[in-house]
């Protein structure tokens, strides 16, 4: 029953908001305004569900081939994270300067339901249903502002999502055919099915688009700045995790997939490292954060790769990935909302800066933060997994360098934020406090979450200086480098160099996409030309098919001559001669 309320309540609110269009003008305005202000209430039932519901699967037979949902180890924490994040985002929408707030909150609610559905789905079709609805609702968020860059971002997002959808759909069908309708058995089904590699490839491609793995990440840096801040928080915090969940559910961790494992790891590391320079050269904070998300998702992808390559470590990696995802979701959400806190909210500069610094440190994995626990768990899970390609260096040593990259990125973000001017306005107090709590709280939550999965994942003891140093040396090196770079950049010699004070023009956001756009537009032109040729071909085939008119004209001419009396008379005479002749000649034959 709880499930019905959790899913139904937000949808009901959305329906009310849409129906408001029918009411007379002023009543509609009042309704919409109240709706967006109390938008966050939509997530409360889901929160209660997440806390209280048991882990048995609930099935609704009559809905769409039978939908079933369950809160298992992966789903519950992510759902909790989603509830918190969406609640916060919904709270931040009203009076945040974005136009048509009611429409935005409606879209976010729909996204929330879909996202929750993705996490909690227990059968293939519900998963695909929620995944698709979330993708297309996401498109609504991206183009919400209606500006030209938003439309361009939206177009690219849509094209990539549709391609992703195609891949996911084919993967789903293949999995279903292999018998993996229920998510519990789908991993085993994939392992057992004849076209296993094809499925894994499609999964990589399909969910890679959503999770922003390298070649498919281009839409992320474009979408985040375009979307309104609460939307990009949700987009980066929760929706990206759907790709991760997709991998966790379907990839066959049982057997050792060395080939695919290494592929995942290679792409992930590529993403992790390349995102850093691209991010550093930007001056829009949201783009920097976007690149930071790409690198963090790279980090998670490494975990997936390891799980694939080393079957024994699969369990630990999964849990580590979930923990890390929850941590990253909350932290990244806080940072994004922090941008809005900085721009619009009533608080003074200092408290916002401090709290954002806490969130930033947590992402980097500084001790006493959620990130510290998550990173530690991940390093333990990865353990001794070797990464063959890099000449024997074990993953454990490589990961910290990723941490270094993200530290640099966050330092860049801090510099850019500091320089950003503020326009504080009288916004509601409650949401700022909530923001502050969420900024601080994750360390406890993440810690509790990691410990609750004791046997698989390990949690560092908090105050052991040895682990502190092992964990935080990349943080310190990163900070030192950042401060050094900042001092050099302020120096006169570098004052006007474009590298020191980048404006995002050296590497435009979405880097590789500009090449692809040109490619796509050329292909479009070619396709259109081909279509017109096809059209021309079809029409003249039809023209040739029309009955030969000349035959009918010949008949008409013959008929004119026939109408003369003598001619038809002669014909009759000839016929009489022929008939009688025939009778006389061989009429005798029996």
């Amino acid at each position, binding site marked *: 029953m709880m499930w019905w309320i959790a899913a139904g309540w937000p949808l009901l609110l959305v329906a009310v908001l849409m129906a408001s269009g029918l009411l007379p003008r002023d009543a509609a305005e009042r309704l919409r305004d109240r709706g967006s202000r109390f938008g966050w209430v939509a997530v409360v039932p889901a929160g209660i569900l997440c806390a209280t519901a048991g882990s048995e699967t609930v099935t609704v037979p009559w809905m769409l081939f039978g939908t079933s949902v369950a809160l298992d180890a992966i789903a519950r924490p992510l759902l909790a994270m989603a509830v918190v994040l969406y609640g916060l985002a919904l709270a931040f929408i009203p009076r945040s300067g974005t136009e048509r707030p009611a429409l935005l909150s409606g879209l976010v609610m729909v996204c929330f339901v879909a996202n929750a559905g993705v996490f909690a789905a227990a059968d293939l079709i519900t998963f695909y249903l929620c995944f698709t609805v979330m993708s297309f609702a996401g498109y609504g968020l991206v183009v919400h502002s209606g500006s030209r860059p938003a439309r361009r971002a939206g177009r690219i997002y849509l094209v990539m999502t549709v391609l992703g959808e195609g891949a996911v759909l084919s993967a789903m069908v293949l999995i279903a055919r292999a018998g993996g309708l229920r998510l519990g058995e789908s991993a085993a089904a994939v392992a057992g099915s004849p076209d296993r590699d094809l499925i894994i490839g499609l999964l990589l491609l399909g969910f890679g688009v959503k999770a922003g793995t390298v070649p498919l990440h281009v839409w992320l840096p474009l979408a985040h700045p375009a979307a309104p801040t609460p939307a990009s928080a949700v987009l980066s915090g929760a929706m990206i995790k759907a790709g991760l969940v997709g991998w966790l559910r379907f990839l066959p961790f049982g057997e050792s997939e060395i080939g695919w494992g290494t592929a995942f790891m290679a792409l992930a590391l590529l993403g992790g490292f390349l995102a850093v320079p691209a991010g550093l050269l930007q001056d829009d904070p949201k783009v920097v954060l976007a690149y930071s998300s790409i690198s963090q998702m790279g980090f998670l992808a490494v975990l997936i790769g390891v799980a694939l390559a080393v079957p024994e470590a699969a369990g630990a990696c999964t849990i580590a990935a979930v923990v890390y995802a929850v941590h990253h979701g909350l932290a990244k959400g806080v940072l994004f909302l922090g941008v809005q806190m900085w721009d619009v909210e009533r608080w003074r500069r200092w408290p916002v800066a401090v709290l954002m610094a806490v969130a930033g440190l947590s992402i980097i994995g500084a001790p006493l933060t959620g990130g510290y626990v998550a990173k530690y768990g991940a390093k333990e899970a990865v353990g001794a997994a070797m990464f063959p390609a890099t000449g024997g260096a074990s993953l454990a040593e490589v990961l910290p360098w990723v941490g270094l990259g993200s530290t640099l990125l966050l330092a860049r973000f801090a510099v850019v934020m500091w320089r950003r001017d503020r326009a504080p306005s009288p916004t509601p107090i409650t949401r700022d406090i909530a923001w502050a709590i969420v900024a601080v709280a994750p360390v406890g939550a993440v810690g509790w979450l990691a410990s609750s999965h004791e046997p698989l994942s390990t949690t560092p003891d908090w105050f052991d200086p040895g682990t502190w140093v092992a964990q935080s040396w990349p943080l310190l090196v990163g900070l030192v480098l950042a401060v050094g770079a900042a001092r050099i950049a302020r120096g006169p010699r570098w004052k006007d160099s474009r590298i020191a004070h980048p404006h995002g023009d050296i590497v435009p956001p979405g880097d590789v996409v500009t090449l692809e756009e040109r490619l796509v537009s050329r292909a479009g032109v070619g396709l259109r030309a081909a279509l017109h040729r096809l059209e021309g071909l079809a029409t003249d085939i039809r023209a040739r098919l029309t009955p030969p008119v000349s035959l009918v004209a010949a008949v008409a001419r013959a008929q004119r001559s026939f109408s003369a*009396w*003598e001619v038809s*008379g*002669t014909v*009759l*005479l000839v016929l*009489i001669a022929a008939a009688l002749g025939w009778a006389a000649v061989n009429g005798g034959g029996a």
Partner: protein
Amino acid sequence: MTFVDLALLAGPAIMMIGLVGHLLIGDLLRRIIALNVASGGVMLVLLAVAAREDVPDPVPQALVLTGIVIMAAVTGVALALARRVDAVSDESEDR
């Protein structure tokens, strides 16, 4: 080769002469005349058949009598129509 056989042969001859004339001539009146000739031919065939025996067979003779009367009636109507056709073609010429 008795006279009756000869008459029997002459029948189709006259009929074909009449038919050829009827079907090829343009002038309506001569065409009607040719038609009567052809009808005469057919009647000849019938009567020749009747006369094949010593006692002439009355049935074909009755048929011929009916045929002649019908032919006369038809000629009457044909001439009436022919006159109207010529009158119409005269008017069309004068106009």
